[in-house]
């Protein structure tokens, strides 16, 4: 006997969207755990404010601008695919990838400067937190770039499932939100 599977609408949401939001929920726990622990340690520790002064605020500002702009370009890519504008989609997706690469490039420059100045992950608890949180975030940016490149080059696959741009966008915006909190936490406060 053949079994028939019928898709049940779930508040009008696609399974992919519910799935990405559950994934993001687990990511909130991951980064939230780091951030909550950092805040608690920061309130109890002495000398962390002094350590934070060695961070390159200018690069932090530039990287914040880059990620905020990349959030704009990927939402414009989504708007493009929804109106069927393939050229605009490719342009904005390409820009998002370039901005992601620029973010990682500046992060490499920043890490290099800090390591040369003698601030390594084992230098102290602040630096361990700094490298762990920003390194994990950078890995997420790299993952987002890979997804966006796949979406950019697989034209036919993308055409058959345009919702993938929205799912990739939700992930990219989340990575942006994480940086929105990491930047003031590490560089400004």
């Amino acid at each position, binding site marked *: 006997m053949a079994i028939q599977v019928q898709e049940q609408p779930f508040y009008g949401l696609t399974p992919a*969207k519910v799935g990405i*939001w559950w994934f993001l929920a687990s990511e909130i726990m991951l980064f939230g*755990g780091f951030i909550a622990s950092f805040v608690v340690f920061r309130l109890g520790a002495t000398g962390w404010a002094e350590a934070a002064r060695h961070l390159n605020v200018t690069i932090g500002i530039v990287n914040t601008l880059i990620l*905020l*702009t990349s959030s704009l370009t990927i939402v414009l890519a989504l708007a493009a695919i929804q109106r069927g504008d393939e050229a605009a989609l490719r342009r904005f997706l390409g820009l998002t990838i370039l901005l992601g690469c620029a973010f990682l490039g500046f992060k490499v420059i920043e890490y290099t400067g800090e390591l040369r100045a003698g601030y390594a992950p084992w230098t102290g608890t602040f630096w361990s937190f700094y490298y762990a949180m920003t390194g994990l975030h950078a890995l997420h940016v790299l993952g987002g770039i890979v997804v966006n490149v796949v979406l950019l080059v697989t034209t036919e696959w993308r055409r058959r499932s345009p919702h993938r741009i929205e799912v990739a966008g939700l992930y990219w*915006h989340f990575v942006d939100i994480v940086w*929105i909190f990491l930047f003031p936490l590490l560089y400004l406060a």
Partner: protein
Amino acid sequence: MTTHAPRSNYVAIWVWLVLLMAAGVAASFLPGARALAVTAIFATAVAKALLVALHYMHLKLEPWVIYAIALIPVTLVAILALTLLPDFSFHH
């Protein structure tokens, strides 16, 4: 996301994000009361995160179930921080 619902002006939201970032950076240079500066810095960060979530992630167009999925871990993280906090307060 409701495809036919009115969309935000994405470029205007980006301008607000940049202005809020500039305000947060400016607050970090405020002389005097550090607690006030830190409050201003994180207030601008929360405002930026809300703008991205509501307008770029289109949370404002989503049903309550998406809010529930997103808010459960946020609540758990807040509980984690609050339960850890007394430990450090008593030691320092």
